[in-house]
């Protein structure tokens, strides 16, 4: 039984993986991209992007390297690994299944 935080964590991880699947980028970039794409609906505490990134790196789905920002400032860049790609596909499936199931239940109501 995962707590509410777990669900949120899991969802955040999924989104980060997806963002990085498109192109490698640094932490701030990922946070910004999520914000933009979700139409500013999802405004997670921006800082929580970092535990997510490090967690993903710890599990081997994402790796980090030293790169440069647009202005040439040294910054850590994250990119998806092969294992991460596989994990992304899996989590997308679970997420789709989960949301479909929840929807079915909700449709049953009032």
């Amino acid at each position, binding site marked *: 039984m995962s707590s509410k935080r777990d669900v949120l964590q899991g969802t955040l991880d999924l989104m980060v993986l997806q963002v990085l699947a498109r192109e490698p980028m*640094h932490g701030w970039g990922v*946070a910004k991209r999520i914000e933009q794409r979700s139409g500013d609906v999802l405004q997670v505490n921006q800082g929580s992007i*970092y*535990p997510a990134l*490090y967690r993903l790196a*710890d599990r081997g789905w994402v790796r980090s390297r030293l790169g440069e920002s647009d202005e040439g*400032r040294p910054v850590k860049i994250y990119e998806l690994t092969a294992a991460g790609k596989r994990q992304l596909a899996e989590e997308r499936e679970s997420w789709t299944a989960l949301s479909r199931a929840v929807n079915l239940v909700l449709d049953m109501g009032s």
Partner: protein
Amino acid sequence: MGWFWRWYERVRSIFRRGRVEGELREEMRFHLDMEIRDRMARGMSPAEARRTAHRDFGGVERHAEEVRSVRWTHALEHLLRDVRYGARALVARPMFTMVVLLTLALGVGAATTVFSVVDGVLLRPLPYPESERLVRIHTVWRGTSSGRLSPAEAVDLERALSEFEAVGVYGYGGATLTGAGGAMRVSASYASAGALAALGVAPARGRPYTSREDHGNAAVALLMDGFWRSRFGADPSVVGRTIELSGEAVEVIGVMPADFRMPEDLASSDPTQVIRPLALDPAQVDMSERGSHFLRGVARVPERLSSAEAVRRVEGVAAEMVRTYPNGYPPEMEFRLAVLPLLEDVVGPVEPMLLLLLAAVGFVFVIVCANVANLLLSRTEGRARELAVRKAVGASRGRILAQVLVESLLLAGVGGALGVGLAFAGTRLFRGAAPPDLPRLESVGMDLRVVGFGLVLSVLAGVLFGLAPALRAGGGPTAALRDGPGSGLGPSRQRLKRWMVAVQVAIAVVLATGAGLMTRSFISLSRVDPGYRTEQVATARVSLPSASYPSADEVVAFHAELVDRIAALPGVSGAGAVTNLPLATELGDLGFELEEDRIPEGRDKPDADWQVVTPGYFDAMAMRLARGRGIEPTDRAGAPGVVVVNRTMGEAFWPGMDPLGRRIRLGGQRTAPRWAQVVGIVEDVRHGGLDETDGRPQMYLAHQQFRTWSDASAIRTMTLVAHTTVPPAELYRGFRETVAALDPALPVFSFRVMEDVVRGAVARPRLLTALLSGFSGVALLLALVGVYGVVGYAVGQRRREFGIRIALGAAPRTVSRLVLRDAVRIAAPGVIAGLAAAILGGALLESFLYELSPTDPLTLALTTLVVAGTAILASAIPAHRAMRLDPARVLKAE
């Protein structure tokens, strides 16, 4: 490979916490800066931008903390905390902790000690460069599985195996060193230049001798390091100096390194002190004379040859020899050459014994682990409430499991370290108690690999016996909280403990059977009558150098006079001399021909083990003369040649006939044959070992009459034997003074009392018996503790039942019988399983036993009684306690 980098990062983060933290903060700072800039770009004021950015980011510290926990340093801190907590818990229960630690230390210590022996003797490479390429070459023929090489065979080998890196032969002997420091006997090796080259160790000082010097019998010598230090005070100027060896002036051309040993020295208590050229000149060897097997062969196989090919080459040489010299190798002889790694040749004889010890100590270790596991399980039950509370307050199963495991590992670590410490003492004890001719005894010691083994073993043990209680601790806590402290074990846990005790009992039975068998076998072995006197006999060796006694007559006269004088000493009731003392030196074989020139059925050319004796030897050694007479003083050089044969020889070469009066012809092809008439038959003796049961033909020739046919000299080195009425050790001075009176420059060496010789001959069985008995004693003790623990616990559980029974009028004896029945129920399957295992595995012990079957019923019955008795004894106290239960008190406590 990703996992590797993850672990790398983890380890890195532990060690460079500062830098990793810094990187993280840098990242977050960058993030905030970009965010602030972004907001300012959207129109906020700098202050507003900064405030909202920080607000939206969330607590930096909180995120940093989260990251840190992800990075697992958290886990390490947990670990450290667990260790501290575990240590405190262990210290709080000193009795428990001490018992566990002691048991563990005993187990790990014993196992590590035995491993140090196995490692030093069997596993470590020999002290020669690339020793895995060194091989022993020896002869094999019908009746002899491991024979030496003859000079002709050695020459053939060196010539034919030219593609080997080096091939050589060597032998052992002695010499007399005279000069400053007095005359002393030195142990010498006579090695061909090829043999030294094969071994591959160059002198630490000076140089080795060349093939040319070897063939030319150059007067050179190499000193062994130990001898150089003891006799020459480690004087560096000894190289180039001339010393007098057996009357010959010999130049010392080098000193060998300190750790160099000749191969047989690795298993000898009389190691080489001097190395001299073998002086086997191929040009002068009579190649048609194939006999005279006294040389040991060694070769270095080149890298590009596989071992199979090397074997093929050598076998090819043997086939060639048989083809070229059919007279020397008749087909019935089934002659061939065998090759085996030198290490195997050196340690092969003791390998079975050491492996048996390793297995036995392995069993003991299993018992130790079972005992500790049981103790820990009991403890876990005792903590059931504490763990339940922890779980109720939110500790995860994983954390609790980890914590209990850490405790077990802590115990294992400390216990293991203590055990390794014990092993240091154990190894030293072993080196003191082991027979000195145990191969490679000096390599036995605690080196890094052995210590590592001990530590790995303790960790393994910790995981093994820690897992069960840890897993149990993780599950089902609330029941304990609900039922209170007396609720105790779930049935599955109790069953596990009972099974473990049954296993302990089974192992104890196996070990006790082994120990019992070995003990009985050893006792019968020590009681064996070898055919000669073993007590009240003093022996010593004397060797006459050719320089002082050039002629055979002088040698013979000296020895005869010496024996007479020894016999006249006070305290001596008879004396004689012999070439090879039984149990002390090996016999060689000598070929001869029967007068009728016939070859008896089923044998090849006649040969027999030979001894040369003086009159008085048979009496001094109380050898039994079956018929005829022994060697007498009248059997002199000019008189008709005589020989005394043993019973086996008589029956082998004159089957169905009377050997007395028959004649045999001795001598090779180069000297005139000498005849010897059989004048007596003695009973067989056990010369090679007390357990020698296959009779070999032996003949005894008269010292006055025997001449070697290479140079017509008499035997110079003889072993004096004196039957004493006083304690034999007292004869030492008498021997020395008598010899000194005849020749002050002649050393007397190898003074040994026959009792000690016999004791040395059974030293290995004695060691094995002692160790197995020790192991089985420990096993029985641990099994006793195990049974006691389980039965005692069961009694505690059944207190209510017993109380009711007694209240209802049952006699106390009934209750104690119930307890005993329970004990039997626990132990019986163990005893049965153990007996089955002992019977099935008995065949493994067969080679160690002397005239005893491994499934000897008496021993098995005794073992069963002892182990069953131990189990019953273990349950005696709990049974007694059960008997004296006060029913009122028990029932009231409900």
